[in-house]
């Protein structure tokens, strides 16, 4: 009897695991080329819910959150203080491996999708980002005002973007997320992640990569400036000499 009981519950458990929904995602384009007149772009991420519970699907109980993160970089947030009448940079906080950009699209308000505890553990939303402390410091000691300012400044530079309702369902199981790439989008590998929630509970996540590259003249000058500053400087000087010489030929007085 007892064995039968256990077996019964194991079967139920297995069935529920089997029935747990999964998601698949794909990008509208796997790489983005930045040209000299690049003015920002939208990128679409398509996905589908697989093995969704029909009852939950009927109730529109599934929520999707899609995040596109730029390559991580170290950031310093500085606070200005008045010293001897002038405003100077005073206290500062360094954060390591901050996503250089963070674009998030959701089916509805993040707080309605899941509770703060889950959002925090999944690092979802500007205020829940994973923040790494420099050596010798602890992330627990971060002054909240610097953490908030980091997000606010990134938002003001269009690098952190949030689109509530940016994910919509094309069919009960097929969804599309529209994420914005700002004009100043960081170059490199961006990671797109989709999160599936079922009625307030996190279910699963999938991720894929998006490569953002400069092309043509932009790429040449960018690579040169960042990889071979010396050569870039020499070219800058030669361009200046040529311009100066041309000016003296064109406008020669005698």
């Amino acid at each position, binding site marked *: 009897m007892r064995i039968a009981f256990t077996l019964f519950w194991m079967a139920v458990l297995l069935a529920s695991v089997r029935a747990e929904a999964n998601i698949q995602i794909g990008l509208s384009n796997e790489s983005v080329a930045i040209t000299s007149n690049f003015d920002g772009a939208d990128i679409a991420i398509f996905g589908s819910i697989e093995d969704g519970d029909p009852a939950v699907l009927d109730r529109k109980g599934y929520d999707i959150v899609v995040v596109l993160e730029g390559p991580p970089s170290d950031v310093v*947030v500085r606070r200005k203080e008045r010293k001897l009448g002038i405003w100077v940079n005073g206290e500062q906080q360094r954060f390591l491996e901050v996503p250089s950009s963070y674009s998030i699209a959701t089916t509805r308000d993040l707080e309605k999708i899941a509770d703060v505890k889950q959002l925090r553990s999944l690092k979802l939303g500007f205020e829940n980002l994973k923040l790494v402390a420099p050596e010798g410091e602890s992330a627990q000691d971060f002054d909240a005002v610097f953490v908030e300012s980091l997000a606010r400044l990134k938002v003001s530079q269009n690098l952190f973007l949030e689109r509530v309702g940016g994910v919509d369902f094309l069919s009960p199981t097929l969804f599309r997320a529209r994420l914005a790439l700002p004009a100043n989008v960081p170059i490199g590998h961006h990671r797109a992640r989709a999160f599936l929630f079922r009625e307030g509970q996190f279910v699963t996540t999938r991720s894929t990569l998006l490569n953002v590259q400069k092309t043509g003249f932009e790429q040449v000058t960018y690579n040169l400036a960042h990889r071979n500053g010396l050569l*870039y400087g020499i070219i800058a000087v030669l361009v*200046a000499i040529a311009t100066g010489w041309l000016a003296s030929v064109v406008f020669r007085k005698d």
Partner: protein
Amino acid sequence: MSVNVFVLFGMGAGVGFLSGMFGVGGGFLMTPLLIFYQIPPAVAVATEANQIVASSFSGALAHFRKGTVDLKLGTMLLIGGIAGSAIGVAVFSSLREAGQLDLIISILYVVFLGTIGSLMLVESLNAIRKARARGENDPAPPMPQQQNWISNLPFKMRFHRSQLYLSVIPVLLLGMLVGILASIMGVGGGFIMVPAMIYLLRVPTNVVIGTSLFQIMFVTMFTTVAQSATNQTVDIVLALILMVGGVIGAQFGAQMGQKLRGEQLRALLGLIVLAVCIRLGWDLIATPTELFSLGEKVAH
């Protein structure tokens, strides 16, 4: 960074016009203007050094053809200038790392523009008053002939073109000061070098401009390469737009300058310089709307 090409071209042409009209380099006006236009000060300074290469090259070329360059004196100033520029670029990097670069650039500008603008204004207003009192321009005051402290310094060297027998110490130091200013402020430094050469080194006025342009040209070349290699703050495209605007504006400015009188021109320039100084100074003391700022270093 989203900027308008036509605005930048216009700024280049406007400052070029002023520099043609007043016969000055214009770096000390261009860099603050770029900063007002939200170009990061680090980029403004290094890119402006690149632009000055173009303007000083065509200027130096003209003086070279006329034979109004003292090559030996220029080379000595240049040795000091390269050393100064190297020091300046290193200081620039560490100030940037410490998050104090923008502040130091602004303070230096306020101090230099304030001093020079006031001196120019006072001097030109005095000249205008005197000219009115006498009814016409009087010749420039004779150069003071008495010995100064500089003639007592050791390591003397003969500069044939300038007919000077002079210690190299003040020459090297002057070159160095100008080199430091070039790398930290993005200026040619003519506004310091020309008066210093005339009044301290007693260089004949006919070779002063050509010789200083010779030095400025090479120092800004070195600064451009050093800034690009160490700080990656040179923007060729930005520099090119400013150069083209600058050389065109300078032609019209030079024509305009010939129609106006010297002291009136100097008074006008003094006022412009003071206006830029006040704006920069105001930005230092006014409470900013955003107290926080981001400094970034991409992890490779």
